[in-house]
Each structure stands twice: as structure tokens, then as C-alpha cells.
């Protein structure tokens, strides 16, 4: 019998260790043929940005990501899925979000990770505020129509 498909969801201040999370997801099983890892990073926006500040709705953020992950596991028959989102101040070059999808074949793993990111962007209650290199606090990042369109392509 195949092992269950473990789903891990975390929201945390600390950075994550992609290798350790991947090892945890694949440990003790040899039925997976594909791992797709997505890591979202803070860009410096051409040197303009000093940091992003990530705010979230505790409880709902974890629950929304959890629901998205369960949908992805079912829809793409994933063998495992991990999603970790950081909050707090994040400097350019640092990690923001991690999704790891484990599947027997590559297309399911690619689709699973991509699906989670497209839904997470539009459904999970996180907000980004920009802090600029010149000391000004920028505004809140606007939601993008392109993210809604990306999500819509899955329905």
C-alpha cells in the first residue's frame, strides 16, 4: 500500500530550509518520481527596496493554505505537499514562500506546485508593505489582475 500524502502547512517568521523540508517529504518512500519546489524571494526592485513587511491573518492564513493544499493533493494525485509562508520583515534576496510538491510524474508535480501558488496569491490572507532604501515607508503592494487571471485558468 502506498503511504499517505502528507501535507505540511506553516506560517512563520523564521527562514525555511528547502533541503530539510524536501528530505522530510521524501523520507522513507521510493514511489515518487518528481519533486517540484517553488521558492518565492524578495526582489530589491533595482535597489529601491529595503524590505518587505508581510502581514497575515493568523488562523485563517494557515486554514486557507491548508484547503488549497488538500485540493491540490486530490486534483493532481500528489504524494505529498509542503507550503510554508514567512511573515514579518523580509530583506531583498531572502525567502518569502516555499511550496514543494511530490508526485509519481513530473507534470503532476509541476501543476501541483503552480496551482498552490496561483491560489495562495489570491486567496490566502497575506499582505505586503514596502519599505524603501531611502527610508520612506512605501505603500501596500497592490493586488495584480494577472494573479486573478492565473488563478482563473485552473477553474
Amino acid at each position, binding site marked *: 500500500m502506498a503511504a499517505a500524502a502528507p501535507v505540511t502547512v506553516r506560517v512563520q517568521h523564521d527562514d525555511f530550509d528547502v533541503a530539510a523540508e524536501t528530505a522530510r517529504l521524501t523520507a522513507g518512500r521510493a514511489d515518487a518520481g518528481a519533486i517540484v519546489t517553488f521558492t518565492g524571494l524578495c526582489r530589491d526592485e533595482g535597489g529601491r527596496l529595503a524590505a518587505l513587511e*508581510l502581514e497575515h491573518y493568523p488562523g*485563517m492564513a494557515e486554514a486557507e493554505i491548508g484547503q488549497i493544499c488538500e485540493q491540490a493533493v486530490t486534483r493532481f494525485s500528489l504524494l505529498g505537499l509542503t507550503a510554508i*509562508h514567512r511573515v514579518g520583515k523580509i530583506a531583498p534576496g531572502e525567502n518569502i514562500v516555499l511550496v514543494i510538491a511530490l508526485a509519481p510524474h513530473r507534470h503532476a508535480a509541476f501543476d501541483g506546485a503552480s496551482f498552490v501558488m496561483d491560489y495562495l*496569491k*489570491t*486567496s490566502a490572507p*497575506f*499582505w505586503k508593505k514596502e519599505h524603501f532604501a531611502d527610508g520612506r515607508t512605501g505603500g*501596500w503592494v497592490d493586488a495584480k489582475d494577472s494573479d486573478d487571471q492565473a488563478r482563473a485558468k485552473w477553474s
Partner: protein
Amino acid sequence: MTKLVYFAWVRERIGKGEEDIDLPASVKTGSDLLRHLKTLGDDYAHALEHENVIRIAINQEHVEHDEPIAGAREIALFPPMTGG
């Protein structure tokens, strides 16, 4: 009493992250709630000026503006999400 929670620029403009509030019986939906809050002061009016961009969650689940709020323990108001 109903617990209201605010995030991002909704929180900043209203000037607090949460509050417990007595809602009049006439406030039956999310839309009613937004209109009621806007009568409570300039901060609320500014935060909720563009009603159509405000997202509403009842008991930590997304709902449409016309959803009834009866029995809600916690209602959250926030801007479109920008995580990931």
C-alpha cells in the same frame, strides 16, 4: 457583541487591529456592515471608501458582500491579498 478584525491598510486607516462592536439589528449582510461602519467616523469612512475592493471573511472564511452575517463570531475586513 461581534468581533471585527482589520488588516493591512484597512487596519492602518481605521487605526486599530480589532474591536468588539454592537451591531444594530438592521445590519444583516456584509454590505450593511460596511455602510454602518462608515457612519462611525472619518477613519472608517476613509478605510472603507471603496467598498468593492474590501474583502470580507466571516469566522475566517471568505464571503461575498451580500452574505448574511447573523451568528458571526468574527468578521474580518481587509484589502485584496498580496501574499506569495
